[in-house]
């Protein structure tokens, strides 16, 4: 027992000494954007997606990731590195998506994630832009005869845990003094299976995902009904880490560029013909004049690269969401009655 205390003291001192050696390395702050520097060094942007939702991110028969979220990754990659193919997709779950971005495993998160105050306030993350203005909806079986959420007192509802959907439903039922039994399953395929097998009366998530899920059922799609009620606002956006404002700027202005392109009628097909345009807005957008790209730390033709890679915002929608039978509605650009409005690029 005599040697116990001296030993402890020595151990603590040794620990402090060894610890002192390592504590010298502070978090390295690169020039401009640490995320951009890292992406350039590795020659790739790493983008977190779902990889499971048709219309948003789902591999096609050739294994190429398709969808609005996937194209969002491509657009930002084209802006950052000049080549939309210098991109690696990392599938994330509803549960691990924020950790993946916080820890630096992915450079940005484009995964149908709702922009909320607590997520921006608590997670150390921020939303660069909304790529889909959505809301929580309910999918039920036609055979159940349900016409509205108001009729669903006492229903069992299948939902993924850790989503803003589960909070929205809880709020809605609380507000309307109704009760429901949540069936919470992490794995998307299992939640959908539980709904199809009749374990739940309804399947709830963002209305967009419900529409694409219904569409993916093929001939059986007619047995399922998307209820008209949309019970919450779910602006789905692109997230980046806080503390790298330059990277945030790149993500934000990539969207602005795609919106301006749609306003001006510039598409993936005809973008080259606009290089000789006399419109100062277009000339600045495409990097023919001005130093817009440089201000972001990018190639002067970053917007040209984006449009060449994925087209304008409307093309992205038409390619991915229109086939699912969802009208564009409020997701249109502002000149066509929608919410997508770009600040001037000057």
């Amino acid at each position, binding site marked *: 027992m005599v040697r116990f205390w001296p030993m402890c003291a020595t151990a603590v001192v*040794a620990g*402090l000494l060894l610890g002192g050696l390592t504590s010298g390395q502070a978090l390295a702050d690169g020039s401009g954007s640490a995320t951009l520097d890292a992406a350039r060094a590795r020659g790739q942007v790493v983008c977190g997606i779902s990889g499971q939702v048709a219309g948003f991110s789902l591999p096609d028969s050739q294994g190429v990731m398709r969808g609005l979220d996937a194209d969002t990754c491509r657009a930002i990659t084209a802006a950052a590195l000049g080549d939309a193919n210098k991109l690696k997709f990392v599938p994330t779950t509803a549960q691990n998506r924020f950790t993946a971005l916080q820890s630096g495993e992915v450079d940005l998160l484009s995964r149908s994630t709702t922009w909320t105050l607590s997520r921006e306030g608590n997670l150390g993350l921020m939303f660069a832009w909304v790529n889909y203005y959505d809301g929580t909806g309910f999918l039920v079986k036609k055979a159940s005869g349900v016409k509205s959420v108001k009729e669903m007192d006492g229903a069992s509802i299948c939902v993924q845990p850790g989503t803003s959907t589960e909070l929205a439903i809880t709020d809605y039922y609380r507000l309307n003094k109704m009760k429901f039994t949540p069936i919470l399953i992490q794995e998307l395929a299992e939640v959908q299976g539980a709904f199809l097998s009749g374990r739940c009366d309804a399947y709830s998530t963002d209305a967009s995902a419900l529409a694409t899920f219904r569409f993916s059922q093929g001939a059986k799609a007619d047995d399922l009904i998307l209820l008209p009620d949309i019970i919450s606002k779910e602006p789905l956006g692109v997230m980046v880490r806080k503390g790298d404002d330059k990277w945030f700027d790149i993500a934000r202005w990539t969207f602005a560029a795609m919106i301006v392109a749609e306003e001006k009628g510039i598409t993936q097909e005809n973008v080259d013909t606009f290089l000789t345009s006399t419109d100062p807005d277009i000339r600045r957008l495409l990097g023919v004049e001005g130093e817009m790209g440089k201000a972001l730390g990018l190639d002067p033709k970053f917007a040209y690269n984006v449009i060449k890679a994925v087209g304008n915002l409307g093309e992205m929608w038409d390619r991915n969401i229109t086939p699912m039978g969802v009208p564009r509605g409020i997701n249109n650009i502002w000149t066509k009655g929608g919410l997508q409005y770009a600040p001037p690029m000057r």
Partner: protein
Amino acid sequence: MSAPDPRLIRARKAPKRPLRLSWADPRFRAVIWQVIIIGIVLAIGWYLVANTNRNLSARRIATGFGFLERVAGIPIGESLISYNPAEDTYGRALWIGVLNTFKVAGIGVILATLLGTVIGIGRLSSNWLLAKLTAFYVETIRDIPLLLQLLFWYTLLQGLPAPRQAWHIGDAVFLSNRGIKIPSLIWEPAHSWAFVMLLIGAVGTWVWNRRARAQQEATGLRPRLWPVALALMVIVPGVVWAAMGAPTGIERPVLRGFNFQGGGTVSPEYFALLMGLVLYTAGYIAEIVRSGIQAIAIGQWEAAGALGLRRSAILRHIVLPQALRVIIPPMTSQYLNLTKNSSLAVAIGYQDVVSIANTTLNQTGQAVEGIAVIMAVYLTISLAISLSMNWYNARIALVGR
């Protein structure tokens, strides 16, 4: 030769020598090495904590356990205690998760032990069919990953008919893809008191049993146990219940709207998880029981048989008590496994502590704290199981006389 008594070893300890500050002294060397190793471990731990804290604050990610006090707002499907997402905190939500883990692990351990013991004994049966069937069971169930088994049972339960077409026994028990619905007793004070009397009666019976054994050892005559047990555990609680009005209110499940209302429920998620865990773990327990029984020398069976005991009596009074000494230590591992395996609940939507903590960390963004809660809960449960099993093991171990 038997191992020497540890108390004797201590008595013969070598005389103490003073510690020399020389590399030649093995005790001094040992101290130095221990200091270095503890120092390295502490340094790594300190570095990890400091690094995490630095990065969390650099990224402005919220830290601390303050979120436990915040209103949760997350829905919870099944709970042993009342839960209102509008008012209750994350702390309470997590506690519900812990209770749900207990609910599946506690009942799972009991059922797995019973089933495993029966199957283990079955493997040693002289009945060819029984021995082969149980052997087949053990080999099959142990060789399929537990997660697949859980998904299999859950999918199977989803194949049951919808509530409106539920299979039923009379108007009382309904089996549908929403689970098993059974009538439940409307709980009244009379039931509580009868239950309290039952507990007191059980303690009384235990005391009587001890006295009976002492008397048997002293005189060779064993007083009857069953009349006392009957009186204390059945008649007294029954009389109390009758004296308080003998309430027999029963609540039956009734199909109303989307689902059955009223009555008790066993959800498909819970049932699939329990069934998967019990069947899987029973396969291992069966092998432990079989090996434990086979570890008892055949001479014990023969000697007991020569005394004229029946086979079942030999098993119960001679073989199993001795086999327990071999069985208990590996059994502890199986209980720990079952408890930890219950975290696979997330795959099939049963809300155990992992599921609720996952949701919590996702809604609050506090991953480090959420994982810490999960680890603390499992560590506590596992240590409790280990300690109680070690205590039991020490109690039944061979005592040198």
